[in-house]
């Protein structure tokens, strides 16, 4: 927590300094400015911090000057799910600070609000988390380095059917990403030959999951597919499921990796053991690249375990560096987008590429199981679906 406060302080100090510097045109000549908009305070502060750690690692590895120019990060805080604030901040960054690129956002509504600004200003907008399918369709200047919910839900449905699950119930949060996850799971599961026996949507601000879990339990399905936002809600749902002995009663619980987000997995305790989820990144992913990544992030901030948001922030920033390199520091929105569209590189999560048609990420999706390695609870990957495109478009 101390570190997160310090990060905030540094972030806001940088922002204040930056706006001062922006006033003098001569200073801006040799600088490339990246506007990072995140939910630094409010209920999603932890998620924003995860992304920020990834950005910081990339900055540390690549240094702050490139092609003879200085890289300057201007951080802005939306204070939570506030599309109006996100839009205002993006507008300020583009018109006053004259940033060359925008990046960030944990949440879909904030991403959608910034889309128009990116289009009008012809400034590329690098999505580091927000995972609703539709986002990249909202502006030709949006490119995504995180994931989409259909991208991880549909492969899980196919995997479940292949592994003996013929009937499933769905439980999702009642908002954009939840509906995306529900629709794509249902579609892929019934297409494979499975049967959906029921569904329930839980309000996004919900203090108690017990009645919903009880409803699933009383329906006695063979399995239940769950999606709720990573963090507090996932913990709440796991608690309710453990208390109702949902899994012990014979119902298999599967979900997207948001359920077992590395940042909070440890605090879920042994109740999470054995849970099967699908996602694009696991802290326990076995590769030298990932080892270097996790060690690097933990050296910057050891209070939070790096998770899929951190890798989204890191890859997004690395991609930005690659674009600046190729443009030799001569920034141009359209040229930058052309480079983004053909981008392909090795990420800590595995190989990733951008689909030129949708500007969305193409990546391997892993099926993982929660296991105890040493004294740590981690998602151990045991199956892989290679090069998955977003099926939501």
């Amino acid at each position, binding site marked *: 927590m101390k570190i997160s406060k310090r990060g905030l302080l540094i972030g806001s100090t940088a922002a204040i300094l930056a706006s001062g510097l922006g006033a003098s045109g001569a200073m801006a000549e040799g600088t490339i400015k990246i506007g990072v908009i995140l939910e630094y*305070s409010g209920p999603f502060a932890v998620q924003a911090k995860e992304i920020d750690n990834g950005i910081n690692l990339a900055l540390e590895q690549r240094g702050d000057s490139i092609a003879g120019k200085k890289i300057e990060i201007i951080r802005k805080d939306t204070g939570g799910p506030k599309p109006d604030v996100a839009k205002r901040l993006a507008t300020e960054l583009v018109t006053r600070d004259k940033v060359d690129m925008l990046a960030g956002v944990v949440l879909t509504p904030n991403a959608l609000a910034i889309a128009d600004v990116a289009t009008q200003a012809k400034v590329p907008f690098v999505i580091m988390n927000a995972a609703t399918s539709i986002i990249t369709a909202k502006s030709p200047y949006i490119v995504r380095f995180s994931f989409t919910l259909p991208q991880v839900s549909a492969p899980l449905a196919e995997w479940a059917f292949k592994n003996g699950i013929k009937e499933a119930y769905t439980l999702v949060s009642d908002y954009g990403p939840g509906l995306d996850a529900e629709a794509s799971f249902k579609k892929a599961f019934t297409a494979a030959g499975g049967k959906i026996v029921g569904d*329930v*949507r*839980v309000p996004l601000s919900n203090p*108690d999951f*017990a*009645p919903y879990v009880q409803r699933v339990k*009383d329906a006695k399905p063979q399995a239940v597919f769950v999606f709720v936002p990573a*963090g507090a809600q996932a913990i709440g749902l796991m608690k309710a499921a453990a208390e109702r002995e949902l899994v012990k009663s014979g119902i298999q619980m599967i979900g997207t990796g948001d359920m077992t987000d590395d940042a909070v997995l440890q605090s879920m305790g042994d109740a999470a053991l054995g849970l099967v989820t699908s996602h694009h990144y696991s802290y326990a992913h076995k590769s030298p690249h990932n080892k270097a990544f996790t060690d690097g992030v933990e050296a910057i901030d050891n209070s939070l375990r790096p998770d899929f948001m951190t890798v989204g922030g890191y890859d997004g920033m690395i991609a930005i560096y690659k674009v600046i390199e190729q443009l030799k520091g001569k920034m141009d929105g359209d040229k930058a987008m052309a480079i983004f569209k053909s981008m392909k590189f090795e990420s800590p999560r595995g190989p990733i590429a951008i689909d030129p048609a949708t500007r969305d990420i193409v990546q391997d999706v892993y099926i993982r199981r929660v296991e105890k390695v040493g004294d740590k609870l981690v998602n151990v990957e045991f199956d892989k679906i290679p090069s998955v495109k977003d099926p939501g478009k």
Partner: protein
Amino acid sequence: MFLSFLGVMFDGIAYGMLLFVMSVGLSVTMGMMGFINLAHGAFAMLGGYVCTTLMNQYHWPYLLTLPAAFLAVVAVSVILERGLYRRLYGASDLDQVLLTIGLVFMSVATMTFFWGTAQQPVNLPSYLSGQWSLGGVGLGFYRLFLIGFGVAVSGLLIFTVERTSFGATVRAAVDNQKMAAGIGINVNGVFAVTFAIGSGLAGLGGALGVNMVGLDPTFAVKFLVYFLLVVSVGGLNSIGGTLTAALVLGVSDVAGKYYVPAVGAFIIYAVMVALLMWRPNGLFGRRS
């Protein structure tokens, strides 16, 4: 069908008991001094943080953190009551609301500063997790514990108010402040004690509820709505009324979410509107 109904009743009663422990103090202080303490939720939140901090950082056993949460909140509420609240006892409703809602915002910022915005983890001891199957109805140990606790607290409160001399002075002070003061009762002192106990109970409720409803700095705002629902439906300063209202709202909330999940979260408000149209002063309200 019947079994699931019993299960819903059980969960609803457990939730209701939690609401009761958290809001009974608000009902009594509001009825007694006519003081609108919107910061009541902040006291509950503080209790929750005392509980999770003692458990996670100092490894206290869960059951010991409960009295600690109670006492810590009592101490804080005495300071606030003596330092701030008493100055506004005769003031207008607007002044009181402005002061206490300001305290709510300050508490949210304070908790964020010390604990961050993340949800606080709480791992219950093994004897409170899991459930017990009784004739096909799953009874969670934690919820059984909540119900037992709620019954004990309400029994103790009703006994204190109805059967002890302190209770008699409280009732006298509620019924007619001027007359009570006239016959030598120290109304201010009685109120200070009642306020402290009521706030302490809120803190205790906050600590009890962390496992069920979670805990983050927005708790004080999020649950204020529930406290006000319970108090307005129950009627001011009636312990029985608050208990009944908390149980009715708890059961209807759980039942709504279970049977009609599409609109479940709104059922509790519909019940409130219906009950208040039937009894505008609350179920057991005495004010005219």
